[in-house]
């Protein structure tokens, strides 16, 4: 009965991510599982639908690699760093392939995941009303969002957004036990509801800890193990994004990607070096240290700002 869930990113992607799947990529500009993202690219998965309130370079890399057919999101960009070049090439020029997109807002996406996680069929929201996101849709047609008059008589119409329940989700977190009980702190982003809404979840963590560590602070658990099919232990798995308590974002590296990906050739060179040319996260880290030096690597590591302990006794 006990299922072995601890495995490599390679094994997890190969076992649980199939071409054509609808995939949630958890988090929000932080703790994004780059290890899993890169593995999907190396395994050349195709025709994926990727879902998240907001996407950064991880989406851009999947798009550039031709893994993505459809996007369900509210934001695909890199904040102050600027635009994602593969995303724009795909949307504007169909390079490497044309991509369809369903545009929502951040709250509407969060509400769709919340609904999915609770078995609620749709959520009535104020978001999107009157905007052109109501007018345009892609493959979802009229089921992207529907307007409905409040049946409780307020006279107001609401935008109904349907529950989102992706086939599989993946996310990076600080820690989990071998059963897949996941703990996260700091900014939760689209977690916990994004991953809870998925049928299955691959979780990547900085550290696998004992069930005892989880049980000593169960309020930190964002996802119970029963939805988790794979637990991947990959320290620095979300580099160049941050992971609270472990490392800060690597702005230089993010900027480097944005710069180099301005041309298709530049993008390919970057990817050959940092994704196709490495076999796993450990290999990637070795390359990082070889390239930028141990000092730079160490500079990313988090300072100690420990929480105090609380008593769970009875």
């Amino acid at each position, binding site marked *: 009965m006990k299922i072995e869930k601890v495995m490599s990113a390679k094994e997890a992607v190969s076992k649980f991510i199939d071409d054509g799947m609808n995939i949630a990529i958890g988090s929000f*500009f932080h703790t994004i599982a780059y290890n899993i993202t890169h593995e999907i690219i190396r395994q050349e998965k195709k025709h994926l639908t990727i879902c998240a309130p907001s996407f950064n370079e991880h989406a851009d890399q999947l798009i550039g690699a031709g893994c993505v057919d459809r996007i369900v999101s509210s934001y*695909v*960009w890199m*904040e102050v760093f600027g*635009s994602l070049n593969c995303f724009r090439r795909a949307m*504007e020029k169909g390079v490497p392939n044309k991509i369809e997109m369903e545009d929502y807002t951040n709250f509407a996406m*969060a509400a769709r995941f919340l609904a999915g996680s609770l078995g609620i069929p749709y959520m009535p929201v*104020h978001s999107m009303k009157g905007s*052109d996101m109501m007018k345009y849709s892609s493959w979802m047609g009229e089921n992207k969002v529907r307007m409905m008059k409040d049946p409780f008589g307020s006279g107001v119409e609401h935008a109904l957004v349907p529950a989102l329940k992706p086939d599989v989700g993946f996310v990076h977190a600080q820690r989990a036990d071998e059963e897949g009980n996941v703990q996260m702190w700091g900014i939760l982003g689209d977690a916990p509801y994004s991953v809870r809404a998925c049928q299955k979840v691959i979780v990547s963590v900085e550290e696998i800890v004992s069930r005892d560590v989880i049980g000593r602070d169960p309020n930190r658990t964002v996802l119970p193990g029963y939805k988790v099919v794979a637990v991947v232990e990959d320290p620095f798995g979300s580099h160049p994004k941050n992971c*609270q308590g472990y490392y800060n974002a690597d702005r230089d590296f993010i900027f480097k990607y944005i710069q180099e990906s301005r041309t298709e050739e530049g993008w390919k060179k970057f990817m050959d070096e940092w994704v196709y040319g490495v076999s796993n996260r450990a290999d990637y880290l070795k390359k990082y240290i070889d390239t930028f030096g141990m000092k730079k690597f160490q500079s990313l590591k988090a300072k100690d700002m420990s929480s105090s302990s609380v008593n769970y006794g009875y």
Partner: protein
Amino acid sequence: MMMSENRYSDFTLQELMAVAAAAEIKDGEKVIIGTGLPLLGGLLAQRTHAPNMIAIYESGAIDCKPLVTPFSVADPVLVPGAAMQGGLIDGLGIVHAGDVDVGFLGGAQIDKYGNLNTHVIGDYYSPTVRLPGSGGSNDIGAGCKRTVIMMLHQKQRFPEKVDFVTTPGYFDGAGQREKMGFPGDGPSVVVSTLGILRFHVKTKEMYLESYHPGVTIEQIKLNTGWDLKMAADVKETVRPTPEVIRILREELDPTGIFLGKN
């Protein structure tokens, strides 16, 4: 734009804008701010006239007092010292519930009625330029009691009608937001690179309240895509005091990441 007496008596356009943004915040208000200039405006307000301002980030960080100026709405420096840290559903949930007083917005285009476009230039299905999308922008535009919009003031960015309505201003004019039943009342001000613009209390049409030092009204008209109306008492934007400029440069952006090196 140098008019120096001491080293803080001059100011840049960006500094002026950050100061104007700060002036829009009242003490004790709950404010959802992004990164860049709005962030500096918020931090400045907190250091000056609004010490009890509650800074909220859509990433779920509430009442943040970061020791380091954050680079992203999900910057980990926001977390230690925050009163509460959750996720998107928490950060934007209180916006959607109408609890938040002020929201900062920006965009690629803004029109006469304060509608913002951050989706596409050109056709939605075959865009000339594809932009980020809404993010939390539409949610903030619908939910915050009022919004403060910061814009690069160029003609193509101020069209009479935006290519795509991402975030609601007043749609086609007065009375339309009310029909939607939004919790929030809509845009209060546009702080542009050329001036400060507000919305007519009755018609909801944008008009010029003040032009920045060194900018002419003619220049603003030329950079606006419709026949921009003026306030009866249109005047120069209030100049920042040296003390405020000192705080901005020395305390809030000592490395010059946001304001550029002076």
